[in-house]
């Protein structure tokens, strides 16, 4: 456990002393700010419109602002997460520091967990910016806090799953750009795979759409924690980390 902490700490250190963390934070702050502003402006516009019409239709901040916001951030995550995970192992291999890690008295799984945890914390730091954005809504309105919590949980789970796969991809190459591009391709695929649902409702299509990563976010952002989605994310995380560990082991056979 101590080793996981050691590796995680060093990884976070590297994120934050190199420009990558700050670039990602700035990018994310801009994007999430933009979407927050956009959806709250829509909301304000709709409220005005419904008042003009004289109907007092019930309008919910949760449903009209926060849920779509989580949906947008989930998609932005697909683009940003490969940027977080691409360096995890590729960089160590290129620098030769991999030799230090694997010749130290540390188990492979500890290396993998430490690095993945650091990447998840980095992603959580990005989501911290979103939390700031959303907290404005609590100042000017009174949304229900429970869907907010479940939405963040969903985003973290989705991030965790993508980061686990990103770590695996990064362990296959010593080129960060390749790791980033393949990671992005995979994230994109896991998203658009869902679009097949419009084709019908055969078993194949249902299986394919179950694999889609973003669709499992929807219930989370509406405040519903469905076991089906939870199991999906947890098993994706487990699979990703398992593959990474095996890849790390095979490294010494291939070396």
């Amino acid at each position, binding site marked *: 456990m*101590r*080793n996981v902490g*050691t*590796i995680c*700490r*060093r990884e976070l*250190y*590297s994120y934050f*002393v*190199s420009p990558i963390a700050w670039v990602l934070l700035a990018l994310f702050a801009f994007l999430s700010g933009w979407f927050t502003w956009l959806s709250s402006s829509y909301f304000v516009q709709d409220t005005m419109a419904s008042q003009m019409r004289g109907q007092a239709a019930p309008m919910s901040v949760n449903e009209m602002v926060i849920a779509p916001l989580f949906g947008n951030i989930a998609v932005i995550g697909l683009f940003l997460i490969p940027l977080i995970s691409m360096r995890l192992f590729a960089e160590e291999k290129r*620098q*030769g*520091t*991999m*030799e*230090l*890690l*694997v*010749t*130290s*008295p*540390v*188990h492979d799984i500890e290396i993998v967990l430490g690095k993945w945890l650091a990447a998840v914390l980095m992603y959580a730091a990005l989501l911290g910016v979103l939390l700031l954005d959303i907290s404005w809504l609590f100042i000017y309105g009174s949304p229900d806090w429970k869907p907010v919590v479940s939405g963040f949980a969903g985003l973290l789970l989705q991030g965790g799953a993508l980061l686990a796969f990103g770590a695996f991809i990064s362990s296959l190459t010593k080129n960060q750009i390749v790791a980033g591009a393949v990671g992005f391709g995979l994230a994109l695929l896991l998203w658009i795979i869902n679009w097949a649902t419009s084709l019908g409702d055969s078993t194949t299509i249902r299986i394919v759409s179950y694999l889609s990563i973003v669709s499992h976010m929807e219930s989370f952002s509406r405040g519903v924690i469905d076991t089906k989605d939870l199991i999906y994310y947890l098993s994706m995380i487990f699979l990703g980390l398992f593959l990474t560990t095996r890849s790390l082991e095979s490294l*010494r*056979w291939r*070396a």
Partner: protein
Amino acid sequence: MIQVTGLSKKYANYVAVDNISFSVDKGDIVGFLGPNGAGKTTTMRILTCFMPPTAGKVMVGGFDVFEQPFEVKKHIGYLPETPPLYPEMNVVDYLTFVARLKGIPNADITDKVQQAMKKCSVLDVSTKLISKLSKGYRQRVGLAQAIVHNPDVLILDEPTSGLDPKQILETRDLIKGLAGDHTIILSTHILPEVEAICKKVIIINKGKLVKTDSVENLKNRAAFTIEMSTRGAADTVAVRQKLEQVASVSKVVDREASSGRLAFDVEGLAGSDVRPDVARAVVQAGWNLLEMKSSTTLEEVFIELTGAEQSSAPQPVAAAEQAGEQQ
């Protein structure tokens, strides 16, 4: 401390290390010598549990590298060919990370890091970023990384490569200073380095073990060259036969000589000095003894053992490239 028996490592279609065996005693400094691409790095990577052997048994500090790599890793400090440094970290933070990774209890970390920095004289750059350090300092930080947990065995892969002459001398002194507490294996293709630092040499070439011996023995090998003239009284073959008959002479090889002269490489049985006997035989035969010269530099011994054609042929380059591809 280290026992290697029948070690082999095969890559897909290339044998990097072929059935080598050697042992290293506690406290020894051993030079691992060979031309580029000889299999030095591969052997060291197996010793440090970076990769498993294809065949053979490797024991470090009483533990098998294949069965109990975790125990072996605790006892080993390793400096790979390129020091494993994180350029974005500063020296103290980096060494603290390594210390923690090597399992040093939190309470001792500051102490151990300070000691390692002192031993490797990097205290003056302790708060600098590693990316800002010169090559020499990086090498020393790499060395500090290898000794921070005070390991029983130190494995250094070409510790002086790429340094300037002054840095090379400093690094050698540093390594010599570490002897005693640690058993050290260092690889190199620079011969004076072995003469300067090591007590024992393991020479490998093309993956095969060529010789293990002490540096002293290698330098004192009873080999020498002899040059003489016979004023036409005898031809090369006759002289060679005469020399071979001298007691304790094991090998006589023709050498090229300027016209009117004959030259031979003469080798005696180990531990014997055949020079007086050979000189007497030459004089008694009525020939003129012009020159006798021992080949005492390790350079000559090395070239003799690994085959002289090696140094000029393009083979080593190809082998090194192949090794590079494997990494």
